[in-house]
């Protein structure tokens, strides 16, 4: 894959996340095959592909929720450390939004957002609370701050999850199918937050099936199948003139209705 590198070079961005020759197996299944990917600072990269293509796994390797068998992953020039305090520190710099929200069920919305800043960053409770309330305002759930996650709709929960990740002031945000578990009428409220985040200059890696989001907010679309990156292109080019047979096939299947 040379597409990613040439793209970054052409836009002149400083590389923030780099994957080199990354391989991973789940037992006999080869989920990532020699994956190379570079994401520049401020870049929004959408990863799409059929289910089982390895896109979620790829996303999760970047903050080492999945370990890799071989290859190199660097964040801001530093290789991911092994499990321990160093890795925890690095994860604090990488925001992650999950398909199933994963808000802390025993904590209020506000406490979900302040937990990381207070415990992992050592901020004062007052400072964290102020920041949390700003972020909850920004994602439009300020009036839910004292509720528990189970009392919120899916769309609200996912927006809280975004606020929780942003509270860490991350260098990069990972989104692992953030709208796949949502009822259709709630998808847009989450995508709107993500689009405004993209416009604010946040570096984002987004695994999604939302082609509208890819077209509107992505700088690049990465297409994966069978654990490989088959295509890495600008959204317009990818959607109108996909180069790879598998991309064409995939697009024809999802865009027909």
């Amino acid at each position, binding site marked *: 894959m040379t597409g990613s590198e040439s793209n970054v070079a052409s836009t002149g961005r400083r590389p923030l996340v780099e994957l080199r020759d990354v391989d991973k197996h789940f037992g006999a299944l080869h989920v990532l095959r020699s994956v190379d990917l570079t994401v520049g600072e401020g870049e929004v990269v959408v990863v799409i592909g059929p289910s089982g293509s390895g896109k979620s796994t790829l996303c999760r390797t970047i903050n080492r929720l999945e370990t890799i068998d071989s290859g190199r992953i660097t964040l801001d020039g530093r290789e991911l450390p092994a499990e321990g305090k160093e890795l925890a520190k690095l994860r604090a710099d990488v925001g992650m939004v999950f398909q199933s929200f*994963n808000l802390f069920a025993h904590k209020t919305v506000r406490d979900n957002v302040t937990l990381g800043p207070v415990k992992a960053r050592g901020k004062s409770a007052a400072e964290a609370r102020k920041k949390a309330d700003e972020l909850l305002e920004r994602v439009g759930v300020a009036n839910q701050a004292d509720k528990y996650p189970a009392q919120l709709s899916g769309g609200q929960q996912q927006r809280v999850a975004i606020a929780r990740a942003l509270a860490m002031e991350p260098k990069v945000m990972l989104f692992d199918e953030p709208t796949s578990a949502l009822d259709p009428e709630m998808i847009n409220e989450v995508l709107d937050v993500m689009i405004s985040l993209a416009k604010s200059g946040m570096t984002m890696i987004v695994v999604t099936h939302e082609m509208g989001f890819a077209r509107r907010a992505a700088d690049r679309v990465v297409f994966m199948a069978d654990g490989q990156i088959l295509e890495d292109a600008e959204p317009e080019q990818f959607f109108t003139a996909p180069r790879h047979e598998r991309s064409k096939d995939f697009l024809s299947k999802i865009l027909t209705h």
Partner: protein
Amino acid sequence: MEFLTEHFDDFVNGFFRSLSIALWGAVGSLLLGTLLAVFRVSPIPVLQGFGAAYVTLVRNTPLTVLLFGMAFGVPGLGINASFYLFGVVTLILYTAAFVCEAIRSGIATVPIGQAEAARAIGLTFGQSLGLVILPQAMRSVVPPVGSVIIAMIKNSAVVGAAGVGSDLFSVYKRMTSALGYAPLPVLTAVAVAFLIMTLSTGALLALAERRMAVAR
């Protein structure tokens, strides 16, 4: 019922002695049991192995064997303490194995996504466990741990029988052998005293369960 009116003070003292065995036993076994559970779910193989070996060994040994092992074995190592202390420590060591497994089952009920989210915001393993996993595990742990603690309160009678002295079981022995009262009424009184402890523990557990159910 003459034994009760004549020796009520003995009963009260016996009750408080047994209660103190039970209380220290509960506090100690909850702490040690939680620590063992943390060992068993930790990513460090040595701790995992220790936790698993401890549970296997202690859970499968009769309490009386442990008690006599402590009482006869430990002084041989040059450590001397009262029977009371030996009794309480043995009870803690024994009960902790069961508490550990009950808490571990509670940890397994917390969705894996909670731990992933905790790690993703930069919490260390200890913080994830202490701030996110255990507080949620505790909800589902209250009923099984409660059963373990109630069983432990009753086991404190076994500890008493091994010779702690002046607890309810010692009172029973003195009443029936030295003072010659009929066993059945005295035994009934002892049973009632234990019921006071176990039933109030049960009530506390029900309260704890209700409090935790609200907070979600």
